[in-house]
């Protein structure tokens, strides 16, 4: 490559809001219903039906806008975006073009400190996509606007038949689309930006922001230009990116595709492309029948939304404590390492569990340990997000108390925790029902120790010969014989006493 290129990236992020009902009708937004079970004349585009705006959608959109430093548009309107597609029952989508609810905001991102997602997504990559490790860079990514709109239905493709089937359960589910400025220059920045947005929105409770399930979706607008150039190149828009990995792949793939075109003297065409993560390539989505001329105009069926200062103040007042503030407070309130605080506050769900469980059992350090070690391990093993944690803070606190009061030992606790992690099982009940209580009767433990000493003369000889480590093996044998129910500390003490005799 003779020239050096810079990648310029802007993102359109769609987020499904956590309302109970759809944006323009009283249908449920709950997942997993039978096809078309959550539909009505409004969200299926029946003749004569009319939309009525869900107030909560406006409040969530405002909340996200305020948390991302946007100006709130005091007089905003809805527009119709006209295009024919079967997942869009009216053949127009109600959205906002001319007067979106939020404009002109920004979020601050940090790069150089790779998160788990970044590490996974960047595995095996080198070069410009990875900033110099160790050096933390802060950067502002501008938000051009945030607008409210309705989601489309779902097309189900029948593998054998000649038809596709339409399910309108998602039709009319409220979305906000967050349109960034073209401020990002690498996949790393893109992921940092998405993580930041996700954190803010999850903290607000405005959405669960799950990429895999589609409640957060990102379209990538990308162009390349020679380093030093101030003009933007022609950009393409890439859709169908449903994981951080595919976003990273798509950015790399599209950057290379555009550079190849420019290097061979060609021109990049402004178009929408679909990324295929299995083939590692994108293809143009254009067809003769897609004019891409959406004929936006103000929706005459909906009134404008006027947002007064008092309303903004009310939404502001209801905003939760965000991560930065939480980190500061944890440093004051809890005696736990900064590293733990960083990780725990990365997810509001995790932070909520931490605070509540610590409040119940009064042992923040132990709660933090359970979250940092066992919880993180199981999340990773099961490829889950912290949001998917099912166990309650109360049960975690109970588990800690069971260990403290020596009802169970640590290794039993881990076993119980695994069950609790899956089903939010009550640990006390589980221990009781499965006879897992620790053997605290020293007489019984002593009997086992005597048996183990008798059965392992070699280890006994080793220990007596000065090999202190041999005691570990013997303790293990005792635990095994006791089916894990002995307290290893007690076993250790008794063994030493017996061997010293």
């Amino acid at each position, binding site marked *: 490559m003779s020239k050096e290129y810079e990648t310029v990236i802007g993102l359109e992020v769609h987020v499904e809001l956590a*309302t*109970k*009902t759809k944006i323009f*009708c*009283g*249908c*449920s937004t709950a997942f997993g*219903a*039978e*096809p*078309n*079970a*959550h*539909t*009505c*004349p409004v969200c*299926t585009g*029946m003749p004569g039906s009319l939309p*009525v*705006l*869900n*107030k*909560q*959608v*406006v409040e969530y959109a405002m909340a996200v806008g305020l948390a991302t430093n946007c100006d709130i548009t005091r*007089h905003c*309107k809805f527009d119709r975006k*006209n295009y*024919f*597609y*079967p*997942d869009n029952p009216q053949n127009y989508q109600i959205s906002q073009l001319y007067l979106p609810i939020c404009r002109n905001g920004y979020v601050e991102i940090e790069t150089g400190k790779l998160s788990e997602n970044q590490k996974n997504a960047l595995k095996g990559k080198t070069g410009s996509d990875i900033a110099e490790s160790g050096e933390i860079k802060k950067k502002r990514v501008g938000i051009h606007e945030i607008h409210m709109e309705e989601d489309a239905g779902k*097309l*189900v*493709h*029948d593998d054998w*038949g*000649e*038809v*596709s*089937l*339409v*399910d*309108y359960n998602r039709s009319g589910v409220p979305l906000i689309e967050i349109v960034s400025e073209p401020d990002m220059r690498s996949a790393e920045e893109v992921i940092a930006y998405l993580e930041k947005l996700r954190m803010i929105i999850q903290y607000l409770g405005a959405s669960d922001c799950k990429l895999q399930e589609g409640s957060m979706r990102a379209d990538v607008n990308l162009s390349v230009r020679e380093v030093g150039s101030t003009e933007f190149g022609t950009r393409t828009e890439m859709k169908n990116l449903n994981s951080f990995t595919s976003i990273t792949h798509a950015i790399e793939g599209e950057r290379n595709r555009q550079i190849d075109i420019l290097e061979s003297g060609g021109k990049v065409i402004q178009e929408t492309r679909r990324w295929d993560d299995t083939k590692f390539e994108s293809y143009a*989505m254009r067809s*003769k*029948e897609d*004019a891409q*001329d959406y*004929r936006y105009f*103000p929706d*005459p069926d*909906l*009134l*404008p*939304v*006027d947002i007064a200062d008092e309303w903004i103040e009310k939404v502001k007042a209801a905003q939760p404590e965000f991560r930065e503030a939480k980190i500061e407070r944890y440093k004051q309130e809890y005696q736990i390492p900064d590293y733990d605080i960083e990780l725990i506050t990365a997810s509001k769900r995790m932070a909520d569990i931490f605070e509540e469980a610590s409040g119940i059992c009064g042992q923040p350090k132990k709660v933090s340990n359970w979250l940092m070690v066992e919880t993180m391990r199981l999340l990773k093993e099961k490829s889950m997000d912290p949001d998917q944690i099912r166990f309650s803070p109360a049960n975690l606190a109970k588990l800690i108390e069971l260990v403290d009061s020596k009802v169970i030992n640590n290794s039993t606790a881990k076993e119980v925790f695994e069950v609790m992690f899956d089903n939010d099982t009550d640990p006390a009940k589980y221990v009781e029902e499965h006879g897992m209580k620790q053997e605290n009767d020293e007489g019984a433990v002593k009997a086992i120790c005597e048996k183990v000493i008798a059965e392992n003369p070699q280890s006994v000889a080793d220990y007596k010969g000065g090999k202190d480590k041999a005691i570990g093996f013997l303790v293990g044998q005792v635990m095994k014989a006791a089916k894990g129910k002995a307290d290893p500390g007690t076993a250790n003490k008794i063994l030493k006493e017996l061997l010293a005799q």
Partner: protein
Amino acid sequence: MANVISDETIEYVGILSKLKLDDAGKEQAKHDLEQMLDYIDQLGELDTDGVEPMTHVHPFSNCFREDVVTNGDDRENILKNAPEEKDNMFAVPRTFD
């Protein structure tokens, strides 16, 4: 000012409108559209600088619903008029997006 609608334009309008026009239909549509646009061009005689476009005649705003589920499962009714249906879904020619 006489408007002239080209073949490409009427083809494009057919795509936007999702209407199939045969050759005679295209000529008729071109003629009708030209005539109407000439007529609408009269509006150009009016000075509308600084006039706020009026979408709604009444100055009302903020019509909301509360976020409460009011609709149950109405599948049977929703699918009643479907020309083709399968597994409680609307059937369309096999389509990929």
